[in-house]
């Protein structure tokens, strides 16, 4: 087992915030955030545009000072311990930023030489390795200003991979990428996670989080709505029972008798929420048949993270905070 030294949070938490708050002149961008990111997780930080994701990441990385509250990254307080924490963290924050007049390779050489813990003797090899890893070796000698958005995004990722990292913080890493590029980034994230790197990934895309993340936190208007393993979050909202057939009105009546609530009929399809103490689905199906309801389809629809979000916030996901 891990042997955490005293007065430190357990080693299995890589990010922990307490009441983390940031107020810009008018706006409360982040409001009392209590976040816990377990070591080894692929942690999705989900929220619509403007919900405070980037602001949180900037505080975690010591770029801006919190108005209130505190944050610990890899067991040490930020921003105070930045010198010892940040070399172990790779970060992509609000998109890549490059020196347009330098080649992709020279951009990475510059970022690497800014790290006082980076060995200059291995610099060239590490830069070549990072470029290779994101598939940019062929374009390494080109000026970064000639790069496409996708190539810039990859170069930004390469900068985060210049050294072995304990934690990767990726702020919307698939922004501006085509579907193929998105798939590649997801593959890379899974690969890194398999190597044992904790990945903290922010996104406003629900399916992205569902596809790659083991854990997730949901933000809305600067507030943390919920956090936990993805499976639990989706399970938090019970699935809906769906019955399809030519007799929707009769079907709805039978379902209501069995305690199914929130019934909605959409053409030939009836859906509803199961009661808290759900009856055996086989019983309901038998009851439908016994009542002479013709059933074409019958089953429980698994709740998605989107359902969870809508249930938690009571609003659509596309609403900007």
């Amino acid at each position, binding site marked *: 087992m891990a042997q955490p030294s005293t007065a430190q949070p357990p080693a299995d938490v890589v990010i922990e915030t307490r009441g983390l708050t940031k107020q810009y002149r008018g706006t409360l961008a982040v409001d009392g955030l209590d976040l816990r990111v377990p070591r080894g997780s692929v942690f999705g930080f989900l929220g619509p545009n403007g919900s405070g994701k980037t602001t949180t990441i900037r505080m975690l990385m010591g770029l801006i000072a919190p108005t209130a509250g505190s944050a610990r990254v890899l067991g040490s307080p930020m921003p105070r311990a930045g010198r010892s924490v940040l070399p172990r963290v790779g970060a992509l924050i609000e998109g890549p930023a490059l020196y347009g007049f330098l080649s992709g390779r020279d951009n990475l050489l510059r970022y690497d030489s*800014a790290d006082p*813990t980076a060995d200059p003797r291995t610099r060239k090899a590490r830069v070549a390795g990072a470029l*290779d890893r994101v*598939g940019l070796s062929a374009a390494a000698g080109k000026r970064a200003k000639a790069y496409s958005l996708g190539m810039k995004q990859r170069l930004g990722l390469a900068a985060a991979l210049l050294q072995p990292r304990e934690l990767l913080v990726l702020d919307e890493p698939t922004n501006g990428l085509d579907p193929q590029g998105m798939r590649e980034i997801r593959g890379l994230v899974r690969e890194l996670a398999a190597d*044992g790197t904790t990945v903290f990934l922010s996104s406003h895309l629900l399916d992205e989080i569902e596809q790659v993340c083991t854990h997730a936190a949901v933000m809305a208007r600067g507030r943390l709505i919920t956090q936990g393993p993805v499976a639990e979050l989706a399970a938090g909202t019970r699935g809906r029972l769906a019955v399809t057939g030519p007799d929707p009105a009769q079907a709805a009546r039978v379902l209501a008798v069995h305690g199914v609530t929130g019934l909605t009929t959409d053409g030939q399809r009836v859906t509803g929420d199961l009661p808290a103490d759900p009856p055996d689905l086989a019983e309901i199906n038998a009851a439908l048949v016994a009542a002479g309801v013709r059933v074409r389809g019958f089953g429980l629809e698994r709740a998605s993270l989107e359902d969870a979000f809508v249930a938690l916030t009571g609003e659509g996901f596309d609403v900007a905070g």
Partner: protein
Amino acid sequence: MSRAEPRAGQPGPPPAGDATGGRTDTGADAGVVAGPATGPAAGPVAVRAPRPGWTLGLFRSELVTVFRRRRTQALFAVLAGVPLLVGIAVRIETRNGGSLGGGGRGDGGPAFIEQVSNNGLFLTFAGLAATLPFFLPMAVGVVAGDSIAGEANAGTLRYLLVAPAGRTRLLVAKYVSVLAFCLAATLVAAVSALIVGFALFPVGDVTTLSGTSISLSAGMARALLIALLVAASLVGIGALGLFISTLTDSGIGAMATTVGLLITVQIVDSFPQLHVVQPYLFTHYWLSFADILRDPVSWTGIGKNLGLQALYAAVFGSAAWARFTSRDITA
């Protein structure tokens, strides 16, 4: 999940590759991205400690970055061009063996300009006297004003800071690169003037401002000393530009503000009615470098200039540090 805790402050070899924890949920399409399977080492990474020697990498990178910019090279071209133009103009004026301005002094041309046709070495002094009031400090204002604000504007500042460059170290590296630019810019103007002067005019023993004569080699040594003093005269505006650069996220804004301040100060320095404030203006003792050409050299004005530049560096350097180490980086 059981993992070894990284021990703080213990630099060590990369962790062995067998420390992959108990993860089994590897994605099905992992490995789509091309590349060998030489990924980061598994599990917690050994804590790397900064090495004093390695921190110099940032300084070298900073210098290389400043000097590789197109803008820097364009400024050098302007600074090399000014003495060339002055030299050609003097050459055309004195083509028929006449001397410039009919031998009269003080008709508005830069200092030393009348002696150029007799002794090409004086083009170095004239070239520095011509570029010091505006071209040189403008170039320094551009580079210093852009130093932090330009990186903030491009967003590269946040990546340098999470590298982590360290705010104090980055600021010092920036100021060092500005000072290196001051020296390089002055030398570009001086060397250009020296080459043009030697190519277009006769050279020989140097008559000092006191009327005595010194050898050509002694004259060239004094020219080098003058170039160093001119470069040192730019230390103040470099610090001022660096401070302004920490105030904004707009590189253009910081450059324009610094150059605007330079012009304002030059105007204030030219009104006799404002003599009360003039000894505190960073431009006020700039032309004291001419005292090097007296025999014996008079050090009073030069000392005042260097003291004033050091004062500006201390005041605005501290202000830049106070601002930069406490500000939010939101760009």
